[in-house]
């Protein structure tokens, strides 16, 4: 996943909150919470970053924290909150 291009699913909206953010998918009616402001920055940065690893770099996520972020991003992918970017 780290070397791939991903983006926020087009049917998902982000709302900032004091603890991080709230994601809502208008299609599945599913609500998800991002509890870490850095994860919010990563998710918001996916679109503009060539790869997921670049998005993590730009959000300043240190190597030691990457496994946790990787797992969180995979969960978001399973929920289709984020999707592979094509083209």
């Amino acid at each position, binding site marked *: 996943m780290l070397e791939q291009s991903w983006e926020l699913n087009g049917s998902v909206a982000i709302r900032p*909150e*004091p*603890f991080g953010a709230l994601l809502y998918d*208008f299609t599945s009616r599913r*609500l998800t919470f991002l509890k870490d402001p850095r994860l919010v920055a990563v998710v918001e940065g996916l679109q503009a970053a060539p790869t997921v690893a670049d998005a993590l770099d730009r959000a300043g996520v240190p190597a030691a924290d990457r496994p946790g972020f990787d797992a969180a991003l995979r969960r978001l992918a399973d929920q289709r909150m984020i999707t592979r970017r094509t083209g």
Partner: protein
Amino acid sequence: MTLAPERPATTPAPGTRLVEHFEHGLDAPICLTWELTYACNLACVHCLSSSGRRDPRELTTQECFSLVEEFQRMKVFYVNIGGGEPTVRPDFWEIVDHAVAHDVGVKFSTNGFRITPERAARLAATDYVDVQVSLDGATPEVNDAVRGAGTYDAALRALRNLRDAGMTDTKLSVVCTRENIPQLDRFKEIADEHGAVLRLTRLRPAGRGADVWNDLHPLAEQQRVLYDWLVAHGDGVLTGDSFFHLAAFGDALPGLNLCGAGRVVCLVDPVGDVYACPFAIHDRFLAGNVRDAGFGSVWRDAPLFADLRSPQTGGACTRCSAYDACRGGCMAAKFFTGLPLDGPDPECVKGNAEASLAAVADGVRPAPSQDHSHRGPVRNAPVPVTIARRPPASPCDESPLGPARDALPAG
């Protein structure tokens, strides 16, 4: 107004559990209920909002549009529209279309009378709109005694129309009562037969529900049946986080398991009044009105909401081993049954409310602060033989020209 002794405002530390963040309130509600009208073609005995007659001060179409636009700015992603019966508003479909066009999804509750095959087809073709059909008995006998003659047939007809139009994920919404707890399996079958999702919610003693709660709320042994049934069905049944007081039986049920009033939940009523939750339409829980400075200002700045978002004292409940699970239960249920807000829920599964409930003297229960109930006969009126109706609170409830709040002779 304070609900409990003053406490200093605090900010949660990093690493705090999500639920604790929610207790401090969010920048906008997650679950916003918007009762569009007090008008209703029915007269259900347990109506939370004592609906029946339209309020002449109801928000205009334009005001509803503006409110939708404010929801969009605040990123309120969806609203639960109810009433009254929202579809009796002539501009109902216009308001729904306006919401959808402004990225505000709609889930609306209906008794189904107006869900014709044509309307069902349009709904099936509209994204971001969910329909919730109310049914409070899995048989006409049980349902119509509460909701009115012919309402079972109307709800089933609506479910069929929606299914036949290709609508998926319709919600079949059931308020759990003493009479229908034995019918849970049958409700699930009805939902499955119509490609619908079953949604069970708690009978609250709010509105006209206060008048019938003693006769209709599930008995102690039925609470256990309900809990076991919910645990067995897990995510396959929706509850709107209704039954967190049952978490004291053991495992928490799916959902947040906290009172979201004023923190993640609120209600906007037909005249624009904002209340802490849909089960608390009473002056005690009135935070403000959207006509003053908009909804956002009420949500952010209302002193009532600030109070609800500060740490609550559990009172007598903190000595109970189950307090962390049930958090003392439902604020509205306590209030309308005359119990202290920092004590046990009237349906406390440990039985801790029994003595205090028995000690609540007649007349101590709070009087309703609004009543839009029908006064004359209603075509589909329920035919309860054992359930008494509350007499009108004031002649003004019948006519805006009548004197306000004078006592009427009983009957």
